[in-house]
């Protein structure tokens, strides 16, 4: 056994091919794991984007608060985050617990914008993945 080891350590032939094969294997494994992770990330993002479904249950033109309150429910298969709200194509500030909605959860989104009774408003709520929840609502 000792003899074998001594011979193995002394013999320097064919070291380069072994090293090159080893390096090639490491590089191949690294690239494949990178490609697999990229695949996972891409498909997860696509699935989440396709799985976004939000319904507007109620819109309240709140005269006491001077806001437009929208009650939303997440009926999709991915969590939703509101990134922008447009009233008649003009960006508005918003707050409320509906700005982040988990699956099957609901809440109010309060939009700070002035409104007039009897007028119709085009309210467009945009999520961070680009889904639009938009419709016309008439102030009472």
């Amino acid at each position, binding site marked *: 056994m000792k003899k074998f080891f001594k011979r193995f350590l002394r013999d320097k032939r064919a070291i380069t091919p072994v090293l090159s094969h080893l390096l090639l294997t490491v590089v191949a494994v690294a690239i*494949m794991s990178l*490609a*697999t992770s990229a*695949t996972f990330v*891409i*498909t997860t993002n*696509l*699935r989440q984007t*396709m*799985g976004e*479904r939000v*319904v507007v*249950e*109620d819109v*309240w033109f709140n*005269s*006491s608060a001077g806001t437009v*309150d929208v*009650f939303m*429910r997440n*009926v999709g*298969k991915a969590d939703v985050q509101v990134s922008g709200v447009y009233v008649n194509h003009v960006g508005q500030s918003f707050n409320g617990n509906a700005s982040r909605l988990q699956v099957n959860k609901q809440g109010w989104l309060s939009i700070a914008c002035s409104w007039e009774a009897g007028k119709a408003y085009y309210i467009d709520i945009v999520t961070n993945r680009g889904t639009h929840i938009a419709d016309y609502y008439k102030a*009472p």
Partner: protein
Amino acid sequence: MQTITRLLKREKRGISTVIVVMLSLVLIVMIVGNVVLWSYQMNQVDLERTQETLTLANVTRTEPTGISMDIKNTGAISLHIVAVWVTNSTMHQRYDADVFLNAGESTTYNRTDIEVPQNAFLAKVVTERGNLAVFSES
């Protein structure tokens, strides 16, 4: 046939290309399969939502407090009502509900804890899939 097999066994060139193509194909099949499957599932969800229809035929106040609603499932699939809304110009109140209706079935849903305004109001029922039925009482 034997000659071809022998040639293939001897010829070592282009093996890495074949392996790379095979691995790439596996990755592409994984991505496409995943997306197509998910798309099919979401299409099913959308289809079910469009097939679901319901009507709120009548809403009456009950004495001393509460509400009575006649709900009919006019669609071809069963539905689950998860919320009731009572709104007017000064208040928009949501109440959780839990009513299942089979296809074509009707029910009278009574709630004593719901406050109904004395003047005009709007009542809504919301299903789990996100569809609404509205009744206006003037």
